[in-house]
């Protein structure tokens, strides 16, 4: 036998087993085990604005938007089985609705953002509704098309001032509102989604992901649940769009930019698919990174790709799956 042939053995920590049941409440040790990672994330995110400079605070805001998109992408792909590449459509729909309401009717952001979130999600869901019968790559391709289609329509019909866009929309009163609004929504959405996927409705959606025919055989209309899932994901995306248009006080066809469809996927790969929290972290890592690499000019994209490829090749499970494993399990090498 070749010397040094070993395999890694993994074992759940006793603490993890206990905290999966009511025993979690039995002592501070168990409670701390559960609470530490969660508090670390929440406090960490909420502390960020206090330590960053003005420039990076702005980056943080857009990272929050990408985090919402990544969260929605991960949810749809890993918990419903819909690979949705139409993130840019959510941003565009939300952004144009809130921007237009603000520019034409003069409504304040406090009103336009909630309206645009819901109305944009309704429109996005209606648009995607005919494609919900498609599965896998077919849904991905069709959903990728919609942002492009929207741009062509806006340019061709010259609505909302066409390629120029509308500027001088109302912005937020100060940088603190900007940051804490998006961070608050990100944290809230994250925990809401984690809750949702373990509720009955979430279990049905995961059932659809695993085996849609079996769900149909159980007398459940899968289109209804796919529609609900798309609506939930587009709520987050459309909020991001509405927020974005007021963040920059501007709306235009670049709200439908490819970045909004692609970067969330990269963030999901980096952060760990199916973990929900991973994609959020991924977005908060990737967005600043792509900013920091701006100094490299054209090389930026190359470096950016190298980092991504590196992750896909060497850590395909993603950051969060790796961290969760380290946190929950003992690992040791065993001679074979």
């Amino acid at each position, binding site marked *: 036998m070749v010397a040094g042939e070993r395999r890694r053995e993994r074992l759940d920590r006793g603490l993890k087993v206990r905290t999966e049941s009511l025993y979690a409440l039995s002592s501070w040790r168990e409670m701390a085990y559960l609470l530490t990672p969660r508090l670390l994330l929440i406090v960490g995110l909420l502390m960020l604005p206090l330590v960053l400079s003005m420039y990076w605070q702005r980056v943080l805001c857009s990272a929050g938007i990408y985090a919402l998109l990544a969260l929605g992408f991960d949810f749809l792909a890993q918990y419903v089985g819909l690979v949705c590449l139409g993130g840019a459509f959510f941003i565009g729909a939300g952004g144009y609705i809130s921007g237009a309401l603000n520019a034409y009717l003069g409504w304040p952001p406090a009103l336009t953002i909630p309206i645009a979130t819901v109305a944009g999600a309704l429109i996005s869901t209606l648009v995607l509704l005919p494609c919900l019968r498609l599965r896998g790559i077919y849904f991905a391709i069709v959903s990728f098309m919609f942002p492009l289609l929207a741009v062509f329509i806006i340019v061709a019909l010259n609505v909302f001032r066409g390629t120029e866009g509308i500027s001088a929309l109302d912005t937020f009163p100060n940088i603190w509102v900007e940051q804490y609004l998006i961070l608050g929504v990100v944290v809230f959405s994250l925990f809401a989604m984690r809750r949702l996927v373990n509720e009955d409705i979430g*279990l049905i959606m995961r059932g659809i992901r695993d085996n849609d025919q*079996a769900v149909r055989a*159980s*007398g*459940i209309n899968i289109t209804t649940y796919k529609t609900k899932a798309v609506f939930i994901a587009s709520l987050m995306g459309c909020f991001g769009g509405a927020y974005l248009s007021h963040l920059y006080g501007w709306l235009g066809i670049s709200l439908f930019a490819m970045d909004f469809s692609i970067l969330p996927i990269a963030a999901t790969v980096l952060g760990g698919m199916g973990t929900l929290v991973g994609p959020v972290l991924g977005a908060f890592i990737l967005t600043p990174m792509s900013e920091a690499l701006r100094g490299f000019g054209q090389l930026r994209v190359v470096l950016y790709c190298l980092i991504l490829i590196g992750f896909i090749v060497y850590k395909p499970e993603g950051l969060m799956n790796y961290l969760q494993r380290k946190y929950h399990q003992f690992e040791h090498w065993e001679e074979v």
Partner: protein
Amino acid sequence: MNGEVILRVRGVRKSFGGVHAISDMSLDLAGGEILGVIGPNGSGKTTLVNIITGFVKPDSGEVFFRDKRITGLQAHQIADLGVTRTFQIMRPYHSLSAFKNLIVPLNSPRVRRTRGGRLGDRDAVAIDILEEIGFERDAYVPYKTASSLPLGYLKRLELARCIALRPEIIICDEIFSGLSMAEIVTMVPLMEKLQIEGITIMMIEHRLRELFRLANRAIVMNFGEKLAEGTPEEVMGNDKVREAYLGTEAA
């Protein structure tokens, strides 16, 4: 057995690109009986199940459930009426634990209706159903993810998913295939119990010995047509059946 016909299949035809999977099929299913459907590979048995349960649309012909025409209804609508099926190739929800696999059907409109609004403790109901079909209670098995369960449990899980719906008809597509003798021995009383509870069962099966212990009546299919029908003894005595199904050596 009350003998009243609850499911009628009339003149169903289906072809997949030039291949006649079912060329002309009619059958009656009486309330409370166990009907066995047998036939060589490729004789159209699974296609028949797919047509009855709405997963495949027939080219012509009709299916009636309690005098209601169900051809053309969506699969989930037919399941909602109480006509459920298992799949020959098991379709569990791999990433969910065994008992959470049952939370899905327990949330179906049919169960909400028949159980009256909100379910109580769904987890307990799910574990009860699993115990009923032979998952050991408290043995960690119900809490294992479906992807880690052995074949025998997955077959039971298929059946459990049907039972959770409180159906009127369960159509089992080769539920015994791939199981060991010992596993089948424990499945047989389970099917008998379901029959006593008033559920009508149609079994597509290759394991004739076990099937004929259960079935009140049998239908033999060959090349998408009904070759023979009758009690298991009558069917097996039929020369055409022996020739088509068992091969000439057996004759």
